[in-house]
């Protein structure tokens, strides 16, 4: 099921994994342990297809993750340090979103028993932000089990759980293992954890220094200390590891799933999730809208223009205001994904990277359009101008569309940097120059009553900008989200 050959993962000069050779068969329960920074999480992330090895080969279910990522991800459930749940959505909305990402047909029938198992049925409509740590962990496990994966990857699943919750988790995992699931469970402490793993792996400084049957559970902590202190294993690595067992006859019952959801269904799922979160919080729209209105009021007060002078200045004022307001929304939109681990959650599903980008960009586009409409209406009042001419709609759609596409791509970059929100406008605004020039000129032409034909060249430039932006963004977004 899992084959690692000489796998090394480096982050610059630091090597998190060094030449790891490993085979895990179907139905095994493997405990992966080692001191902090040994490389356990990196190994699990490579198994979950979230990271690629720097060298060496990985095969999962007999497939190469680079070529069959979506197919492999359908068969893996990964419980990370973080719950990868959206706090601004309810438990049911979270599970429904992930069910759509996995293309599950019978999501309602699948979600109900999982919520029951997680003892969250009564609170299924409450926002996850209101849950305790234990409740969130139970819901996270429900998310992992949603698509009944035959391989479960668990990274420190006992962290933050009390004794009773830990016992419940062990019982649940034992049940899954009994049903034929393969489990790889990472932990750095053995005290108080009683999971019945069959095989123990010890990593130290990225090297696999011990790979043997677990043996007597109570004796393992002493063996672990000895192996880590000596930095080598007696018996040597891979000695005495039993041959991978045959896949059990009672494999976990997979939920009925259609072929992978189409591109636009994936986009729709992400868009619906973002809009639902926005309905609950209203944080993006309110931040962008209030900023835009304030900026326009200040411009109106400071410029104090009417008539022809206003007609010449207002297009620039409108698009500049919109450009600055947009950076607030874009920053927050991607920071929300980053903060909750939502982007990582999506990357664990078979959803295409381009669909993630399109979903996020569409959501940002809709928000910008709403803010633009508010700005246009307010401008008509403050500057006493007729702003709605035939032909204004395509200018608005193309202007905000190109902005949302480039902005979403750059926000995905900026959110991973130290400067974050501060850096986004610095990166984004120079790229928007042709878009802003064209949008301002086209808007100005329309406002001066020159008709749609007057803005023809600028509209063409906006179309070209949008096409180029979409093409480049779709080609490069995968590189941005790859670890």
């Amino acid at each position: 099921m899992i084959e690692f050959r000489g796998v090394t993962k480096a982050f610059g000069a630091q090597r998190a994994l060094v030449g790891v050779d490993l085979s895990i068969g179907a139905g095994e329960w493997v405990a992966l342990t080692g001191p902090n920074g040994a490389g356990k999480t990196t190994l699990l992330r490579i198994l979950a297809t979230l990271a690629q090895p720097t060298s060496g080969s990985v095969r999962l279910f007999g497939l190469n993750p680079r070529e069959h990522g979506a197919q492999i991800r359908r068969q893996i459930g990964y419980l990370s340090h973080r719950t990868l749940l959206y706090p601004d959505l309810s438990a049911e909305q979270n599970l429904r979103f992930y069910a759509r990402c996995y293309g599950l047909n019978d999501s309602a029938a699948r979600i109900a028993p999982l919520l029951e198992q997680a003892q969250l049925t009564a609170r299924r409509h409450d926002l996850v932000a209101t849950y305790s740590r234990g409740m969130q962990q139970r819901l996270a496990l429900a998310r992992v089990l949603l698509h009944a994966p035959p391989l479960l990857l668990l990274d420190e699943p006992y962290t933050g759980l009390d004794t009773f919750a830990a016992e419940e988790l062990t019982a649940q995992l034992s049940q899954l293992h009994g049903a034929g699931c393969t489990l790889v469970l990472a932990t750095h402490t053995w005290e108080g954890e009683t999971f019945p793993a069959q095989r123990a792996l010890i990593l130290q400084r990225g090297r696999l220094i011990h790979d043997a049957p677990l043996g007597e559970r109570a004796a393992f902590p002493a063996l672990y200390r000895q192996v880590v202190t000596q930095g080598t294993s007696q018996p040597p690595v891979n000695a005495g590891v039993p041959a991978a067992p045959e896949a059990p006859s009672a494999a976990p019952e997979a939920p009925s799933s259609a072929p992978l959801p189409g591109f636009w269904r994936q986009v729709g799922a992400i868009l619906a999730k973002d809009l639902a979160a926005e309905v609950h919080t209203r944080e993006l729209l309110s931040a962008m809208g209030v900023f835009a209105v304030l900026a326009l009021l200040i411009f109106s007060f400071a410029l104090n223009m009417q008539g022809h002078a206003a007609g010449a200045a207002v297009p620039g004022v409108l698009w500049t205001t919109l450009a600055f307001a947009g950076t607030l929304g874009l920053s927050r939109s991607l920071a929300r994904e980053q903060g909750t681990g939502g982007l990582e959650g999506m990357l664990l599903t078979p959803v295409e990277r381009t669909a993630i980008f399109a979903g996020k960009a569409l959501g940002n586009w809709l928000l910008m359009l709403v803010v633009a409409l508010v700005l246009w209406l307010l401008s008509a009042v403050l500057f006493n101008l007729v702003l709605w001419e035939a032909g204004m709609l395509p200018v608005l759609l193309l202007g905000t569309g190109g902005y949302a596409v480039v902005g979403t791509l750059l926000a995905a970059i900026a959110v991973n940097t130290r400067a974050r929100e501060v850096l986004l406008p610095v990166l984004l605004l120079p790229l928007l120059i042709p878009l802003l020039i064209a949008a301002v000129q086209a808007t100005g032409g329309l406002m001066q009553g020159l008709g749609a034909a007057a803005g023809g060249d600028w509209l063409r430039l906006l179309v070209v900008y949008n096409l180029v932006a979409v093409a480049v963004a779709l080609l490069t977004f995968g590189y941005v989200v790859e670890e």
Partner: protein
Amino acid sequence: MRDKITGWALPALSVLLFLAALGMVFFYAPREATMGDVQRIFYFHVASAWVGFFGFFVTFCGSVAYLLRGARTWDILALASAEVGLAFITMTLLTGMLWAKPAWGAYWIWEPRLTISAVQWVLYVAYSMLRGALDAPERGARFAAVYGIVAFVTVPLSWFAIRWWRTIHPQLLSGGEMAITPPMLTTLLVSLAAFTVLYAALLRARMQLERERDALAALRAAQEGA
């Protein structure tokens, strides 16, 4: 051995070419009839603009190659070219402003070519700021590569958008013929060669510096891992 030769040959050639270019700019090229001696700045202005744009193109190529191949050398090439290019495009702006004051009566006018140089300068600065704000080396290199590509492809669009405004910039070509005399053209070509070789020498030195930084980081990591 070859590296050592290239190591001193490029800077030496650059110095020789610069001496030749300076000599030609001040003693060979004729005094321009309308603008006078201030026109001589043109030989540095055009040459630095050419290298500044070429450096951006090299960053674009390095970025594409890095995303496709993943080899650190391409990332180093993109990074080094952007840093060296920023120095040249800064020079373009400064010489442009020095020229603009006596020629147009103001240091800065929103003239298309000056504006596109300013846009390029801002893009270079943004690229450098992005590189400085990244921690994860591999991921950071990918981010920078994506930005290098997006930034480069927007430059022609910026150019068209800005160009549709009226230009007052002197034209090299006028009615299909060169607007400068043959000695001026020869001086310009020597100046272009001098700046291009200087760019290559600086690029090589910056790449070498980055490789040595990598080697040092690897040594430190090995020492900590031992």
